[in-house]
């Protein structure tokens, strides 16, 4: 708990809304916002009085992101007791995220669970009798955050970070080895190799960082392709999800000849649904073009819902088609087999493809199960995904910090800085990664040294 930082976070519920409020609080709140907010009418943020509102634009390197209202609270006359600014922005998830990232890049940190309230309490803005409630809030918030983080760490992301951290730790151990044990008979690290290692680690950190595709995904939605044989009920499913008759639905096989898109917001995340023409061999030229497009949209999707019904499962077509789609889809794409028309079944057949969801688009049953899967993916990526995607803002922030520290290490290597200074920068990078995986301790460094090298006279 460090009250010296300036924190920022969404004050309204996440997800789409008419407007959203982002709150910034801390000693440098004005400085942070001043870098990216330009009030209209020649007014100045830094001289604005408390309890006033400024209208202006939020700029990312000159690019306008949104027009916003900024409410000004000068400490101690604010919720937290610190200088606080509240940005009322337009409510799209994309805008919210862009603005938050912009603030994080310009000197503020993501607020932890309950942190605004904690600060309010620390600054005497809340009654002492509220102490317990605040404490519970922090501890509960932390548990939720922890549970979330753990869930994310179980996937490929955690493995990747742990691997990186171990590499960095080994690198630090090599540096520490030559500092604390320079009188020992051990081989010290070749600076050239160290540089290659740091560059590699920085490369991975940057790749992870760049995979933080919130911007892109939020702008356009996570692409979900619905694919399957003609008449499997793809359009019905889409309509059921969207609750409106968007796609043309008919009993004539091949009604949907073009891909149709629509956006649905679930749990604050936008999903871009793409209905495709049915996959079958046909002589109809128009429909063939449609099928080609279907394959293209499978390749571009993050999630593919492979839809089939009991009839085609009976005919034994499903496994073949499922495999065909999996082959077509990208490695990081999640392909979910979905058996439709459950309303026509008495019982769920055995030997369905693994993890098949069973639903009825017509009766709108089983849809919750499906939307839960979609939201899970949005938060955590593909369960067994090899291609790792960063989805958590705090993780992104940590990776960004780590990357900056690694830049510093590389500069140090270039300037041939002594090991104790290099080590200081590596520790900073490790600390940043530890925000994701947990503690780094000196014991760990020493343990690595003692485990690997013959030390001691």
């Amino acid at each position, binding site marked *: 708990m460090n009250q010296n930082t300036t924190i920022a976070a969404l004050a309204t519920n996440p997800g789409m809304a008419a407007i959203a409020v982002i709150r910034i609080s801390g000693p440098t709140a004005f400085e942070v916002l001043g870098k990216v907010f330009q009030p209209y009418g020649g007014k100045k943020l830094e001289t604005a009085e408390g309890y006033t509102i400024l209208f202006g634009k939020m700029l990312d390197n000159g690019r306008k992101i949104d027009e916003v209202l900024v409410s000004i609270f000068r400490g101690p006359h604010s919720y937290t007791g610190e200088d606080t600014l509240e940005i009322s922005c337009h409510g799209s998830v994309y805008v919210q995220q862009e603005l938050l990232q912009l603030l994080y890049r310009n000197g503020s940190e993501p607020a932890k669970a309950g942190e605004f309230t904690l600060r309010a309490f620390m600054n005497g803005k809340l009654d002492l009798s509220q102490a317990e409630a605040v404490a519970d809030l922090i501890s509960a918030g932390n548990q939720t955050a922890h549970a979330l983080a753990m869930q994310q760490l179980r996937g490929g992301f955690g493995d990747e970070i742990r691997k990186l951290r171990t590499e960095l730790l080994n690198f630090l151990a090599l540096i520490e080895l030559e500092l604390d044990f320079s009188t020992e008979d051990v081989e010290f690290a070749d600076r050239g190799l160290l540089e290659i290692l740091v560059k590699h680690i920085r490369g991975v950190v940057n790749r992870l960082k760049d995979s933080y595709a919130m911007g892109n995904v939020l702008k356009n939605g996570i692409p979900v392709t619905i694919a399957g044989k003609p008449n499997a009920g793809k359009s019905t499913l889409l309509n059921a999800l969207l609750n409106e008759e968007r796609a043309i639905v008919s009993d004539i096989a091949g009604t949907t000849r073009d891909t149709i898109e629509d956006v649905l917001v679930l749990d604050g995340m936008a999903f871009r649904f793409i209905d495709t023409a049915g996959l079958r061999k046909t002589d109809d030229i128009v429909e063939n073009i449609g099928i080609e497009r279907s394959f293209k949209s499978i390749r571009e999707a993050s999630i593919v819902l492979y839809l089939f019904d009991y009839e085609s499962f009976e005919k034994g077509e499903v496994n073949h088609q499922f495999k065909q789609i999996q082959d077509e889809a990208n490695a990081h794409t999640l392909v979910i087999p979905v058996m439709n028309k459950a309303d026509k079944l008495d019982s769920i057949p055995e030997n369905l493809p693994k993890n098949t969801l069973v639903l009825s688009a017509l009766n709108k049953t089983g849809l919750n199960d499906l939307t839960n899967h979609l939201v899970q993916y949005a938060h955590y990526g593909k369960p067994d995904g090899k291609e790792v995607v960063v989805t958590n803002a705090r993780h992104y922030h940590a990776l960004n910090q780590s990357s900056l520290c690694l830049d510093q290490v590389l500069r140090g290597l270039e300037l041939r800085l002594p*090991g104790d200074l290099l080590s200081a920068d590596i520790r900073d990078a490790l600390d940043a990664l530890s925000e994701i995986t947990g503690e780094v301790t000196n014991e760990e460094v020493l343990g690595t040294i003692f485990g690997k090298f013959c030390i001691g006279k």
Partner: protein
Amino acid sequence: MFKEYDVIVVGAGHAGCEAAAAAANMGSSVLLVTMNMMTIGQMSCNPAMGGIAKGQIVREIDALGGYSGIISDKSAIQFKMLNLSKGPAMWSPRAQNDRNRFAEEWRMTLEGISNLDFFQDMVSGLIIQGNKITGVKVGLGIEIRAKAVVLTNGTFLNGLIHIGEKNFGGGRAAERAATGITEQLVDLGFQSGRMKTGTPPRLDGRSLDYSKMEIQPGDVIPGKFSYTDTPLLSKQLPCWMTYTSGEVHDTLRKGFDKSPMFSGRIQGLGPRYCPSIEDKIDRFADKERHQLFVEPEGWNTVEVYVNGFSTSLPEEIQFEALKKVAGFENVKMFRPGYAIEYDYFPPEQLQLTLETKLVQNLYFAGQINGTTGYEEAAGQGLMAGINAHLKIRGEAPFILSRSEAYIGVLIDDLVTKGTEEPYRMFTSRAEYRILLRQDNADFRLTERSFNIGLAKKDRLDAVKEKYMRVDEAVKHLKNASADPNELNPYLEAQQSPGVTQRVKYSGIVARPQVSLIAMKNALPSLKDHFEERNIDDNDLTLAEIQMKYEGYIKKEQEVADKLGRLEHIELHANFDYSALKSLSTEARQKLSAIKPRNIGQASRISGVSPSDISVLMVYLGR
């Protein structure tokens, strides 16, 4: 027979000597009780002081007004500044010492302190009334009263020496073990454990062939530990280096079945960084040879110490293996190496003052706390002596923070995290090591020590004058500019690009290839400037460090200041953590057991998360 003392110090090793001297110098009446007056200030293991991280501790002890630095300087036979090719935070002074002279200097120093008395006997029991210590009982049955007691028993508590399959009680070779204290403390509710350490054989230097070894001389221009005017070495003795071989390893392996380490007879955990030779062969089997350092034990003795050959294998195996080492073919052994097991008390049972949590006015310092090393022991002894004195005078405790001193790191680590193996200091244990340099220990600590009445006024004045000169040098280098005609020849010689117009000296000093002293010697105008102001090379070295590493020093200082605020938020010792349900279960248990002094210390306890700290702060009403 005895008056009531202010402080009784039990044991006269590095910790005991520093503790006794500090308390007495601050004005307490002190009794130093030792089992053997002839072994005051004994170096039990290698005849050397300092080394990486340890040398920094010796400098800190000196800056605080302790004696380890002065005595090391007076008894040194060789001096080296280690790690000079690394950054200044890593420069580490180390000396080889004359073992006998070191002990003699300690005894003479202690005898020179008028309110310090001595008594030779074994302390066999502690006198405790309520939960407070009031004296000790010695072997002769005498009870001696004191307001505070510092225990510095080293390896003597139930010490058990192992050589091969033989083992016998003892605190050091040819010295008996101390008994009684552990049992009494355990009865009082203390936890105790066993640790293990070892020492190599001592050899007859006349039997060695030095022509087969590599010479290891001291520094051409030797330095020293103390900031006071102790003399510099005018002559030095070299050490020698040789290696083990496959043949040596094979011979040693023949004794493995009789090794107390491998047979499980030794229960205590030994240090990973100070392994026995058998351990090294066993764990790093693919390593063909290991370095051995042959270190003379003093100016006037033929005895040598074989650094790197610590062992508890049977003596005949030791002897046989030594004979196969290059240069040792005709070796004569003065005495074999051995391992020793001893009692320690897990240091989480202490407060940051080194006073025990269970018994008031009882202090522990040195190996009894699970540490290893003369320097670590001396640092704790000094702090225990200071705090015992302050406590009985009702004054505020003296605690060094992690950003102030390695001694602060040492004690905080011990008390907050405990230790499983003998704890040795490494620079990597200190998160602020760029601040904790050997060059600035006086800047960091002398004033602190003066304020509690230990460091003398003249010492503080000297520190202040020195840093005024350093500041003046820095100011000049930052403000004055160099004449290209004068500067360029020097830069050219350093293969550093020349300048076309007048530039500030500071810009030039920042260049990695530039050494301030060499530059000054090459530029008459600069040289004259400094000479006129009595700014010497030592001052310039400090100025150069400040300037070259300014960014890093500043950054670390900022982090230290930021986190330092947490150290000022105090936690009451009888704070009821079990009542705070918002804390995690683990945090509740750990906090109740360790009773941290402040939020900063609490945050370093493993198992206490940042959100636990937030919860604590909420309850503190912050």
